[in-house]
């Protein structure tokens, strides 16, 4: 039996100290199974984004256990967290592509921290990945020459090119219109499925809830609902 990509137990997290201490996560449990697509939803301030950054090894765990891709993050050193991030694909609200690199070079950047890859292999894999998000003929364009939807598709390609075991996405459709938003998340879902990557996706966007296998609703730092997509959206 293989481990779950995300296995969170009793996770508590607070910002600030002393009188200013504000708990944003309270004793949270969360599991994402291999290949599963989980949407985290809830009002702003409910702690879902903090949970995402903890699972992404972007913050140090304070209390509780957070196992990601088999690595315990509680007490993990900065270098270990940095190394683990190379096995996680990140997609942000905005594409955050490097403006001075072409789409292909941007995607290849995700492979540069893997010493086993050569320059040619990186560019080849980046090209294939761009083809699978439907941007084969735009591979050598700069981000400024692409539309918003296309840029976010480049970001999806960048998140997936290193075959991550887990993809974390934060409001990936926030900057997109309905059609391109749908397109991007469906692309993300299909590609992640075919590669066996689990997805943990934070969103407010009700239009994309249908891609999820499971929806976890949060409120006030706690998980208030966790169930199959249909049950939660009801």
């Amino acid at each position, binding site marked *: 039996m*293989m*481990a779950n*990509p995300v296995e969170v137990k009793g996770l508590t997290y607070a910002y600030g100290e002393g009188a200013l201490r504000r708990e944003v996560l309270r004793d949270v449990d969360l599991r994402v*199974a*291999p*290949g*599963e697509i989980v949407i985290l939803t809830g009002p702003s301030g409910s702690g879902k*984004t903090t949970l*995402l*950054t903890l699972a*992404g090894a*972007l*913050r140090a765990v304070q209390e509780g256990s957070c196992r990601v*891709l*088999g*690595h315990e993050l509680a007490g993990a050193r900065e*270098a270990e967290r*940095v*190394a*683990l*991030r*190379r*096995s*996680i694909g*990140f997609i*942000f*609200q*905005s594409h*955050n*592509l*490097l*403006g*001075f*690199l072409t789409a292909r*070079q941007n995607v290849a*950047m*995700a492979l*540069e*921290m*893997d*010493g*086993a890859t050569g320059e040619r292999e990186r560019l080849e894999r980046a090209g294939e990945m761009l083809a699978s998000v439907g941007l084969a003929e735009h591979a050598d364009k700069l981000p400024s020459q692409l539309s918003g939807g296309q840029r976010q598709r480049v970001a999806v390609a*960048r998140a997936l090119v*290193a*075959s*991550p*075991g887990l993809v974390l996405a*934060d409001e990936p459709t926030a900057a997109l219109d309905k059609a391109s938003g749908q397109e991007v998340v469906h692309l993300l879902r299909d590609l992640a*499925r*075919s*590669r*066996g*990557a*689990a997805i943990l996706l*934070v969103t407010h966007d009700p239009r994309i809830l249908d891609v999820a*296998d499971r929806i976890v609703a949060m409120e006030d730092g706690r998980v208030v609902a966790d169930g199959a997509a249909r049950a939660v959206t009801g």
Partner: protein
Amino acid sequence: MNAISDIRGRVREVAHPPGLLASSGLALRLAWRQLWSEKARLASAIAGVMFACVLVFTQLGFRAALFESATTLIGSMRADLFLMSPMTLASFRPEPMPRVRVSQALGVEQVQAAVPVYLTQSSFRNPETGRRRTIQLIGFDVDAGVLDLPGLAPLRDALKQPDSFAFDTRSRPEFGPVGKMFEERGAFPAQIGNRDMRMVGTISMGTSFGADGNAVMSELNFQRVVKQRPGTMVDLAAIRLKPGADLREAQAALRAIMPPDVSVMTQAELRAHERDYWEKGTPIGFIFTFGSLMGLIVGMVIVYQILFSDIAGHLKEYATLKAMGYSNGHLSRVVLGAAVILAFAGFVPGAIASSVLYSVVTDATFLPLHMTTGRAFAVFGMIFGMCAGAGLLAMRKLRDANPADMF
């Protein structure tokens, strides 16, 4: 859960990052791509480094030229040891010493010849305009062959004529077209101090910070010009040793017999003494060091600004790279890489511009400014350090790129 994910969704081993060399190469390439993408900014950064480079080259060039020119006279003397008053700070303003010390020196076994040299500053009347300027007079025994200046050898006999002198054609042009006039009409009368003399030939020596121009003449003619000086006092004695004599032993022997009113120095020591005066006894050395430092600081600020704004303008992108598993160290290398690129890209045109400037300044001031390999390396080291320093300062901004704030 579908079947594919069961097969493929295993926990991946954490990828090993590339080695230091490979990742430095990648960092450098990323830095270059970023710089190249904003050519106007790159150009202004390079111009800033170039400016610092030229400034440092100029300052160091002047500094070296000053020290070099200050020792031109001593360097041109064919002597192993020198006697000089210990009160003399620099040869352009010598304290006299008793002439008898020169004869005393001959009493030391290793000494082959000892000749007096007379130095003073007097005025020279521009033969064209009649204006006076201060000139360095050098009086010496014409037959002893102490001075080894280009053009001097054939003038020996001419300089023995009463009231004759030879003029340094590398003197500043304010003395008048003396060399040209000599070429056109041969020897002609000219006034030094209050005495009418004859200019009988030209030598090549060069100006220094102490002297705008030079005139050489025989001992006797020197005494004719400088009347107020008693003939029993000289300014410098040049001593040549017998072939095979040991320099240190001879120096010790001379010291042993000399009263404390003269010091015995080797040529190297005298040059160092002279250089010391300019370096420590005057603010000139400090001014040039300060000037170089200013250039480096200005350059550093410019490079820092460019690197800093590159990071500040791309904080989200840097944070994204951190989220993707790029370490702080790697991104620091990107910033340092940009600094190194700017160092090279600014130094090369800066060094070329400085070479051109050197020849312009040499023509204009007659000070010997040369581009030497040693100085080029030294300046490159400074420029490199300047850029690296700016990079290290700018790197601190990377801390603001926090991937946790990206969500």
